[in-house]
């Protein structure tokens, strides 16, 4: 209980919210990193997944890459990147590591979603005279959308988590509040930082929940 009280005091102190090490600045960094990396990851993963899914090729490869990715410790990759020339460009290691870990779930989910589209529906579209491109954009992608969105959601939550770990390797973001707390041996700051990160991660998850609920009607029908 004593810890809760002192954590509250830490959070209530306006001095901890302003400046370069303050909560607002770290939150903005975290959000910016997450959003930029999510966009970059989507731009890399989705076109590849949609084309592979449309052609029905390379699926095993996508799934395997995804599984191998799970075995590689994020922290190890961050530190390895930090010691290479990438480490010299500021947030470089964080961005590269984040994108590296967000691409596999995006790729796998979008690919599986594309392959799960009813073959009969695709054939009907072709029978009606749609070209390959039209089938892809008007039939397959809309039907695969729930799975694609699910992949984006997994990737987003993972990006928030990885951006937190990046602080251990000198990156920015909310994790910095936690690592700084450890360096100062300040339990209230560590716990306050952890609460801020947890709330932020849950908020991101919640936003996606809402987006999926508000999504197109066919996206909801399957659940």
């Amino acid at each position, binding site marked *: 209980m004593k*810890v809760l009280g002192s954590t509250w005091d830490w959070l209530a102190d306006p001095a901890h919210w302003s400046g370069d090490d303050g909560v607002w600045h770290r939150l903005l960094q975290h959000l910016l990193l997450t959003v930029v990396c999510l966009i970059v990851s989507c731009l890399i993963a989705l076109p590849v997944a949609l084309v592979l899914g449309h052609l029905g090729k390379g699926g095993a490869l996508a799934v395997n890459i995804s599984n191998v990715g*799970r*075995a*590689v*410790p*994020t*922290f*190890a*990759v961050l*530190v*390895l990147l*930090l*010691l290479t020339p990438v480490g010299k460009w500021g947030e470089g290691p964080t961005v590269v590591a984040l994108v590296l870990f967000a691409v596999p779930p995006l790729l796998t989910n979008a690919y599986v979603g594309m392959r799960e589209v009813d073959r009969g529906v695709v054939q009907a579209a072709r029978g009606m005279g749609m070209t390959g491109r039209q089938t892809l954009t008007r039939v397959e992608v809309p039907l695969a959308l729930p799975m694609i969105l699910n992949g984006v959601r997994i990737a987003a*939550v993972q990006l*928030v*988590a*990885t951006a*937190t*770990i990046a*602080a*251990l*390797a000198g990156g920015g973001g909310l*994790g910095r509040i*936690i*690592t700084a*707390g*450890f360096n100062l041996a300040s*339990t209230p700051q*560590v*716990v306050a*930082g*952890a*609460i801020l*990160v*947890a709330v932020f*991660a*849950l908020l991101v*998850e919640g936003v996606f929940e809402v987006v999926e609920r508000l999504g197109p009607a066919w996206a909801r029908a399957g659940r």
Partner: protein
Amino acid sequence: MTAAPDDCLARNEWICGDYLSTRRQILLDAVGQHLELTALSVLIGLVIAVPLAVLARRWGWAAGPVLAVTTVLYTIPSLAMFSLLLPVYGLSATLVVAGLVLYSLTLLVRNILAGLRAVPEETRQAARGLGFGPVRLLLTVELPLALPAAMAGLRIATVSAVSLVTIGAIVGFGGLGNLIYAGMNTYFKAQVLTASVLCVLIAVAADLLLLGVQWLLTPWARKGRT
């Protein structure tokens, strides 16, 4: 004055045989701690997850809350999870294990429950018709049939735990993560690369081991295949 030794350690190369031979004991200790933390957390996770999944299966209303709570726990980033548990466990190995248990719970409960739900109703009725009580039904029919799904969850949980242990370096109990952390601060390339590669090797070995266990535990899945 003697000249500095001209070996790969002095040149700070990524791949260095001398590192392996001179730091052998340090590496073995780190691997030992890594394995211990992983095994302990997955085992404790399993001991908690099985009853939770069985209860959620038996009482349908319990499934929603159990899944919701474990999923929310999974959303919290690992660094934050370890930090949130800090006031409870202090800077200890227990802190790392507790955090990892919470993570493995989501994957385990979800998969065991899916496995239990996938047991066909006819199979359960047939067992009941043969006079099986609820306990015998669970132990000899439902749980074995849920094994493949449960093992899939266990494999993912174990591989994830191996990689998450490294974050434990923040409190000094991160197995190979400790070496990565120390290597980062001293710019010691061979140490960072060696420890990272060992992490991946442990994850792959653990996955293969569990795959072998599954093969041994589910003889019926092997029969009938040509």
